[in-house]
């Protein structure tokens, strides 16, 4: 019985970006950290804030606001870095705050509408309505797409 329930639900970590709630599957999340010293890495896109020392592992961090072209804000005591791991790529996502883990019934997930919370549809895997909350589920594969990064780099190189 329990296993059936597990199958039909998606456990997600919920975080906030400029008053919107987002979710990433808990399987893809390694840990949630406070913001610590970030070493800037030159010649990378703006949204790559640099690298942090995550218990001896050099981990790149990305500002999600900047990644989604939302205006950036100063980091506060609520700011969190969500360490995610997708396809052998590990990275930290800087978000406004992260404080919830919830189960979403699989049936509640709908395909993304054309525009959701200002984030381009390709980064979104689905939307879930829970009571009065609207949760945007991110497609981390796309968010951490390094192909796109290479293109960016080439554009920079040509400038």
């Amino acid at each position: 019985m329990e296993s059936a329930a597990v199958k039909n639900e998606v456990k997600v970590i919920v975080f906030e970006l400029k008053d919107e709630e987002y979710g990433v599957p808990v399987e893809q999340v390694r840990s949630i950290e406070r913001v610590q010293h970030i070493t800037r890495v030159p010649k990378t896109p703006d949204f790559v804030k640099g690298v942090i020392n995550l218990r001896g592992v050099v981990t790149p961090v990305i500002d999600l606001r900047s990644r989604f072209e939302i205006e950036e804000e100063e980091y506060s005591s609520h700011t969190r870095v969500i360490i995610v791991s997708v396809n052998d790529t590990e990275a930290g996502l800087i978000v406004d705050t992260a404080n919830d883990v919830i189960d979403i019934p699989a049936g509640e997930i709908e395909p993304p509408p054309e525009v959701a919370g200002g984030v381009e549809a390709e980064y979104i895997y689905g939307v879930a309505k829970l009571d009065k909350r609207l949760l945007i589920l991110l497609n981390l594969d796309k968010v951490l797409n390094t192909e796109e990064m290479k293109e960016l780099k080439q554009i920079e190189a040509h400038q």
Partner: protein
Amino acid sequence: MEKNQYLDMFIEESKEHLQAMNTHFLKLEEEPGNISLINEVFRSAHTLKGMAATMGFYDLEKLTHQLENILDGIRNGVLNTSAELLDMMFESVDDLEAMVEDISAGGEGKRNVTEIIAALKKLEEGAGLPSPQSTALQEAASTAVPEEQTIILDDFELTVIAQSEEQGFEALQIDITLQENCVLKAARVFMVFEALEKSGEIIKASPSVDELEEEKFENSFTVILVTKSSSEEVKSSILNISEIESAEVTKIFTGKIQTEEDKNADKEPENSVDEEMENDLPRSSEDSSRRQARAQSANKTIRVNIDRLDTLMNLFEELVIDRGRLEQISRESNNSELTETVEHMTRVSGDLQSIILNLRMVPAEQVFNRFPRMVRSLAKELNKKAVLTISGEDTELDRNVIDEIGDPLVHLLRNSLDHGIERPEDRIKAGKDEAGKINLLAYHSGNHVFIEVSDDGAGINKEKVLEKALKNGVINKGDTGSLSETEVFELLFASGFSTAEKVSNVSGRGVGLDVVKNKIESLGGSVSVESEKNKGTKFTVRLPLTLSIIPSLLVKIQEETFAIPLSSIIETAIIKDEDILSAHKQKVIDFRGKVIPLLDLTGYFDVPVSAEASNHLHVVIVRVQQKIAALVVNQFIGQQEIVLKSLGNYLSAVPAISGATILGNGQIALIIDCNSIMQH
């Protein structure tokens, strides 16, 4: 399941044997009549066959078996070591290698070997070889039983027999044959043992007791019993057990037993006969003799899985980071006791570091030993003649480097053969030996390992290089005149220089020396070339001894800390504003009579400016190959051993940054890649 346990060992040993076969075949090509070489190959083939059979790789077994027959023919003088035959031998070794490769990649080691086997068979039959295959086949099936029951005793067993004789016991060799239709062989064996142990002590069984228990024998086995009972009593006690076909009991006296040493001594004059005997020996004794031989030379070494060494290295890297942290704390706290302890710890960990690094060192031989074979077949393919001389193959390199250096070296050797060495007729015209010489040399110097690939070929044709570079757009027309000879040679390494204009199998398939250069530079090394017309060309590869812990200079650029590997630094200096000159809109300085470009790293890395401009500049003079430049920083922090860490997959290709390291304060500093800075 049980098989997996031995699979690694099987792969390792197979590779060793295949390598040995290759090496010996090559030597055989030079000295066709050398029987001892044949014997070496035979031994390797034989062991390989046995192992393959045990592990159930039957294609491998079949082919080695056929190889053995041919070798046997050569040994008995029925076959000649013609070039054709050797080619076929090499081909079969290639097949064997492919199968072993497949096995190590997780495959079944299956391969269509019928063709080569048929070809080998034809050779064999063409020579009218007798086929003494029955025994060999049986042996190969891993359930081998010796036809003639020769049993070999080691020193310990001999002593036991000798002592029991003194006490009035007798040693009996009992050859027992079970009935053909016996179903539970192991059970019968057990009963035989039980019966025998009532009257005496079994000191040896062949096949071994384990193998007997697993029914790994056909119908007969041999035991040696020390007993006071008479032969007849023993015999009848065995025959009382049902399903026993026969039991032959013979007395043995220590004086008459063939010991291993005798056997080895015999082997020298009468190789072929003894090899036959070894063929028929049960595996257990073959193993023990092999083990003994190995014990003499290698009882002080152990095989350690490379993963464990990697783990050790990783842990040690953590320690180095903490050491840095401790050093910093002790400096800040001014506590002399703490400082002393930390200093001691630094010394100890320094020693530890060199030991761990040494553990990971392997001789260059591991990569080099496949080259003679490669050069030989390549020369044939190109209709050229070449001799490869290898020296310094015992030079040691970090395991990581060894794994990576193979391909670039293959490329350089191919290059020498294809472009360097001339055709035999041209060589004779030029007054050289018909066969070209290629030298592969490795040596240590300072903190680096050097590997040289040189040939006595035609040398690099400067005009042709320029022509090609122009054609492929690597340089502009205007540049041609101003380039020095070295700079022209460097063009060979430029990307886009080599194009697939003429696709030969050997080199020139679009990937050129630039790939070699990139690979070597990614290992933190460099490659350079010297050449003299008609005299030859020499490529020199310089590699760091290790890849993971590098001495470096920490510097501050504004408020950010960066590390510059010491290997590229010539010196540091403080210069005044008025020392800076301008040439072609590029800032330059005069460095020991040479004008070198000045590069401000603040601008280069877009570092936010925070420090006030001063009229004194801190510069680090770096050199990569022939290029020298001065990098402007804000402050020198000091020299430190740093642990190289990657920036992770997400930031896999940041320009001018080769990685990162964790400093004593837990923060990350980026490591500057001087190679890539200099290219701009």
